């Protein structure tokens, strides 16, 4: 009898423990999935559309129905689309896109900004990697928070994965999980799974708005050879050459290199946006130690400071493709590089294609951002509510 009671007690304790863990995990999961990021657009943002306005492939109000921030000068010129958040485990993309959206003034041409190109992928982190769910930046008005995510859309929104992912329309076989990776889905598929449909809807935006060039912002582990670089479609080789040479000569301490977009690897923005529209496509990478496989503790501190003793040690042994020292790759430097590259791309493209010129103001310089990012994110409590958007 006593033995039976003990067994029931153990079962009850186990049940309570499991239910408790499920409740906590469920709460944390829900908090992450439903968290709304705040974007306070600049006073010069002329319109904010939803991605579903461009294609029925994305249902209005669904998880990947992201905001499209539009800055139309009203003066004839070029049209540029900036993409952040393609890979939500690379936090600089949405941070840089957000910062530009909050400060931009366009005096010629038009600029479109998407800060969360695959929002579903920002609602879940990589299973088993102990990533943080959020990251925060302290400002003088309070804390600004972003979701941290992963490369692939959440299984809740895209399931099941096929045995083999066959890229549309090339027919190339890719890893099955990459059907949820928007940067393996371009130019998208109208009736595909969520990431394919999202890429298709963005392509519709590009085609219907007459976008002249695009820039997709990423980060990469230091163990990866395509690092601190700009990858360019062949339509943009000349522009990318000037951008990278100028930034290396005048602005960056660590050079930014250039790569040609390979024609044989499909689904990447720098390849298939350029192939399937009139737009010229570019992609940029900056070093992110948090993504390295050899990293140690994976927390928000590493994300923001970009310092990891194991990655630094690997650098000492010459095992990495990007330099790293005791200063690491802090978030200020990574965001500053992407913002400066965006500015230089617009300037250079306008110089080389005067009929598609875009003139912009208000974006902080590389050195200003190196000093601090905080002053360049606006306080949502002190602006007109019409400037506040959630994504």
């Amino acid at each position, binding site marked *: 009898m006593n033995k039976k009671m003990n067994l029931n007690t153990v079962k009850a304790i186990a049940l309570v423990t499991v239910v408790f863990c499920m409740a906590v995990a469920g709460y944390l999961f829900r908090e992450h999935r439903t968290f709304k990021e705040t974007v306070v657009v600049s006073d010069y943002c002329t319109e904010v559309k939803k991605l579903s306005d461009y294609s029925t492939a994305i249902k209005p109000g669904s998880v990947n129905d992201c905001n499209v921030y539009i800055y139309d000068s009203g003066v004839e010129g070029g049209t540029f689309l900036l993409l952040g958040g393609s890979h939500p485990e690379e936090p600089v993309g949405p941070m840089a896109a957000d910062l530009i959206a909050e400060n931009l003034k366009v005096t010629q041409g038009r600029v479109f900004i998407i800060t969360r190109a695959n929002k579903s992928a920002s609602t879940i982190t990589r299973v088993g990697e102990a990533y943080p769910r959020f990251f925060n930046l302290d400002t003088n008005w309070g804390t600004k928070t972003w979701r941290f995510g992963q490369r692939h859309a959440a299984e809740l929104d895209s399931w099941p994965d096929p045995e083999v992912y066959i890229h549309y329309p090339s027919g190339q076989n890719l890893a099955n999980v990459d059907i949820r990776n928007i940067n393996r889905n371009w130019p998208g598929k109208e009736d595909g799974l969520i990431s394919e449909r999202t890429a298709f809807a963005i392509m519709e935006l590009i085609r219907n708005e007459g976008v002249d060039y695009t820039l997709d912002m990423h980060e990469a582990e230091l163990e990866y050879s*395509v690092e601190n670089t700009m990858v360019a479609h062949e339509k943009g080789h000349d522009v990318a050459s*000037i951008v990278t040479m100028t930034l290396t000569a005048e602005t960056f301490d660590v050079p930014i290199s250039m790569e040609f977009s390979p024609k044989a690897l499909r689904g990447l923005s720098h390849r298939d946006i350029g192939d399937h529209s009139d737009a010229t496509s570019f992609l940029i990478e900056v070093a992110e130690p948090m993504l390295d496989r050899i990293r140690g503790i994976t927390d928000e501190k590493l994300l923001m400071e970009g310092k990891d003793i194991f990655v630094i040690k690997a650098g000492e042994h010459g095992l990495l493709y990007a330099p790293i020292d005791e200063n690491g790759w802090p978030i200020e430097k990574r965001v500053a590089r992407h913002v400066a590259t965006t500015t230089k791309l617009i300037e250079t493209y306008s110089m080389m294609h005067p009929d598609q010129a875009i003139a912009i103001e208000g974006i902080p310089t590389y050195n200003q951002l190196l000093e601090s990012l905080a002053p360049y994110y606006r306080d949502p409590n002190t602006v007109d509510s019409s400037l506040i958007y959630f994504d």
Partner: protein
Amino acid sequence: MKKLFAMLLAVVMVLSMAACGGSSAPAATEAPAATQAPAAAPAAPAAPAAAAEFTGKLVAPFAVTSCGQSPGATMLNVVATQAQLTSVCDNAMTADAIPEGTKTLIITMGTSGKGMGAAGTDVDMELARCTELANAAHAAGMLVVGAHVEGMARRTDANDQASIDGILAVSDAVLVIDDSDSDGFFTDYCEAHSIPLLKVPKALDAGSVME
């Protein structure tokens, strides 16, 4: 007596310098192109078959190509065209496709895995193509310049080194940026092989050594 001896030494030194300078003059009757050192033999490169006279600057019109499908050639082509100089860039250029009137063939060193994969080539095929190209350029009296303008990012692996070694072996002059030569590799090589070295701070500055 000591003064006389010192003066004699100085005269000998001046004469020897003049002799070095003279060695870069065109020599159309030198060994034929086919006898040049193999691309992958950097330690003992053969002298270029018919080196054009190097005047201290790279003279346009240029033909530019990459040995390894990296963007360096595109960069130099853009720099040249921005400087209002005639330049043609073709990363698949073959010996029979060098534009007529070209005075300087520039071959950039360092490889791109993505670039070579996209072009369906590899470093051995690139070396074979560029060596043949250099031989044809020499035979036509052009100056062949090996250039490394993408910094240490293009000096990371065996493919990069093979490209560098192979092109140095057929170069009459070398153009590098400071970062590419941060360990003195190109300086040492050019000194050891008496090849003129043009060094600029950044790729964007390459226009300063073109005319």
